């Protein structure tokens, strides 16, 4: 059984933001980075669905294309949102671990 089967890493947008926190990447590099980081393999449709929304929301921005592959990077707004989200997850994880320790 894998925890991913229950949807822990089911938010592609968060995965993309976390991947781009490590530096600018194009679509395939993001896919591979996310697979290594979490074991989740995002499909191309899912990846670009999330990229579209993130770019339109100003959380990531595209850079000039290298031939046909276009890299993306986090914007300041995207980095702020990622930091807040990960802090919330950290608090949540700490609370969960405390509860587990108490049992």
């Amino acid at each position, binding site marked *: 059984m894998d925890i991913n089967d229950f949807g822990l890493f089911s938010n592609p947008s968060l995965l993309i933001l976390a991947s781009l926190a490590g530096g600018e990447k194009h679509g395939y590099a993001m896919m591979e980075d996310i697979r290594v980081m979490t074991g989740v393999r995002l*499909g191309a449709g899912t990846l670009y*669905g999330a990229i*579209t929304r993130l770019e339109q929301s100003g959380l990531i921005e595209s850079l000039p294309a290298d031939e046909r592959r276009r890299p993306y990077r986090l914007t300041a707004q995207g980095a702020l949102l990622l930091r807040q989200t990960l802090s919330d997850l950290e608090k949540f994880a700490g609370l969960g671990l405390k509860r587990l320790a108490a049992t």
Partner: protein
Amino acid sequence: MIRRLRPWLTRLYPRAWRIRYEDEFTALLEQCLNSPLDVLDILLGAIDAHLLLLSGEPLNWRVMNMLNKIRTAVLIVFAAYIGFVVAGFALVGMADDSPMIALTKTNPSLTAAWVTIQTGATIGLLAVVIGGLPLAITVIRQALSDARRGLRLLLVPAFALLALVAYVMFVLAVGNGRIQLPGVERVIQPGTFPPGNRLLMAGLMATFVLGAIASTLAVWKVISRTDIEQETFRALKRSITVIIYRFAYWPAVVTTLAMFVMLVATVIWGTLAFASLPGVFAGNFGPWGTSTQVWFVGITLLMTLSTVAAFLGVIRARSSQRLPPP
């Protein structure tokens, strides 16, 4: 089998989405389209993209379409210029077969108007070449690297030129007697134009006009598929990055102004020439002995429509947010 689905899968996405993401998405699919699950994921992604467009959320699709907007504007100016060139060739064809050229050489006002037309043509052509060069190199590079349908479309202007050259050589061969055609006279008596000769010259004009239309459509199609915004050129150990559509903006303005000046000069030239030679205007001094009036009105109409279209293109380009304020 699944890989063959790639182009079809991409086309399931909305056009606005494809304008922005198609190339990079296709490049990604070349690396990771392996299983039916991948296909299903793309189908769902396409539905999601359509829903995103339909949702009316305050998404900045306008920014996404900005490249499309300025690209279309540049293409409008280019197509308008081709239309103007066709009209220009018709004007030269009409003037060459009439006494107006002799009059133009002796009348200073007519000379000035004719020189203005020639200067406008030179400036317009230079502006198109300068503005279109980075775009042409980018499109050719992409077509060569992709070996896609774009490459075949780029061959259309080459074939059109080849067909025109071949037809001109054929006409010359008929003219110097190497090829003999029934109903075609080698030497035409003044005031006559045999039906065979008329057909031969009509074929030449049709080859030119159809070639110009086909080439313009092919170039339009290829460029509208190219979503590269900037291109880096290396020359003399230096790299220059050109934002191609923004770069094309000012040459497009110059081309449009040149078209406007040529239109005004053509009207002045025609008005002065026909005032001096009313018999020519009322007669049949158009190509192949056709009505001068019809030709001149047709030429000025096509020039006017082309100039208006070019102005609309420039206005559209100027309204693009990516352009610097004037």
